[in-house]
């Protein structure tokens, strides 16, 4: 009887561990993924061990994304932080036919037109990377440290609106997080409610 109970407990723990593999948690290892970018190159998160990585969920039609791109705010962040050695990956998890879905060619046109400067734009039309990270909104931001630990998960800043005027008075959680982490400090804000349009996963 006891042996059966022990086996049963072990089974439950195994199941719990499997379930915990889905969804992310600040302080835990960021799950590895494989995705193709708009130039046909394959990327694994594990390629970037040793560097800070920012994941930026994106949908070019969403008014919250337009707030940050129309104003040049996102492009400024991309340039500032990639210049400091951060790997910046824009991720597009819109399913075909849904808002934000782009072909590789369309994404490259967009990047050029917007003067955007991510390290790469990852095309995730099946939503597998999005679901792995429980990406909910566009934008939804994640920071991973050089040891592969997720250190930030949440909103881009503290003004969850579509108003461009709010950017100037917003605390940017990504810049703050990267600055603190690079100085070896723990993040003062490691999670926040991400704001934006819902990620357009397949139905």
């Amino acid at each position, binding site marked *: 009887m006891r042996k059966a109970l022990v086996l049963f407990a072990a089974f439950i723990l195994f199941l719990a561990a499997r379930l915990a593999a889905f969804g992310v948690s*600040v302080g835990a290892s960021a799950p590895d993924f494989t995705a193709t970018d708009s130039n046909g190159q394959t990327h694994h998160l594990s390629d970037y061990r040793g560097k800070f990585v920012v994941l930026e969920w994106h949908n070019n039609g969403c*008014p919250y994304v*337009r707030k940050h791109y129309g104003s040049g705010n996102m492009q400024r962040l991309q340039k500032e932080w990639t210049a400091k050695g951060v790997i910046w990956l824009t991720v597009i998890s819109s399913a075909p036919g849904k808002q934000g879905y782009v072909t590789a060619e369309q994404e490259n046109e967009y990047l050029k037109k917007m003067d955007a400067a991510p390290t790469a734009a990852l095309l995730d039309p099946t939503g597998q990377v999005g679901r792995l990270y429980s990406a909910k909104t566009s934008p939804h931001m994640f920071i991973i440290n050089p040891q592969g630990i997720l250190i930030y998960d949440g909103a881009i800043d503290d003004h969850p609106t579509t108003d461009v005027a709010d950017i100037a008075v917003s605390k940017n959680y990504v810049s703050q997080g990267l600055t603190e982490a690079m100085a070896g400090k723990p993040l003062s804000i490691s999670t926040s409610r991400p704001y934006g349009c819902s990620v357009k*996963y397949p139905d």
Partner: protein
Amino acid sequence: MNLLGSFIFYRGLHPRRLIAKAGIAILLLPLAGGAQDSPSPPNVRVELLTDPETSSGSSPSVGIHFQLEPGWHIYWQNPGDSGEPPRIEWQLPRGYRAGPIEWPFPQRLEHGGLVDYGYEGDVLLMQKISMPPMAGVVRPVLVSVQVKWLVCREICIPGKIHLETSFPPVSDPSPEAAVSHKLFAAARKRLPQQPPPGAVVTATSEKDRWVLRLRLARKESHAIFFPLEPGEIEDAAPQAVTRVPRGLAISLKKSSEPLKPVESLRGVLVFPSGTAYQVDAPVRGSPRE
């Protein structure tokens, strides 16, 4: 190609009949900048109403009335996985104060594996506006309001409008006023209530789930919980409802990214009958611990 919104205003300020309606706006694609898809039909009408039957009270009721095209929705105070609740900012004369928004209970809106909390169809967001003490006859003043919202279906469109009305409303026997009052009465029925005596809600923390136990005064087959605070539960996870002696138990998946420690679960419980309770249940450890 820029498509500007166009606004059509109607203001009725006939001195003898200060009707409830103060403004109607029909918005056409208020997004600014950049190439845009072909124009969509108006998806929301927004108007400012007053409740003439509260005219003699100290805090008459006003409300922002949203009428949504099929499939479009706006958001509750906690919007859920995505979205943004409407913002209502009053410009009031000195001494006048707007009370908090009285949120009717929301609906659970599921799409692509995510869940938002909001309203489809029709919703009236009411507020009471208190007036300063006045000697003699109350003179009407003009109050105005700036309303901003996000309305979504497959895509989201932000909108805003500036509306005005004469305040306080006057007692008004017109059919239009009666319609207005009916809207307020219907919205009040959808406001969450304090649970009646005999109804008790407790919350426990059980591994990766919060469990609400409802002891109810009358039989209910089902309930849905809407949390007031974001980041406490996984909004998209199904809520497991089971019958227990004298009530129901609802098991809610904890958020994998909590924003702060959860000391109590606050929110709204909605039953199939259309009754809704306010909930504020301090969380205790598992009964087994």
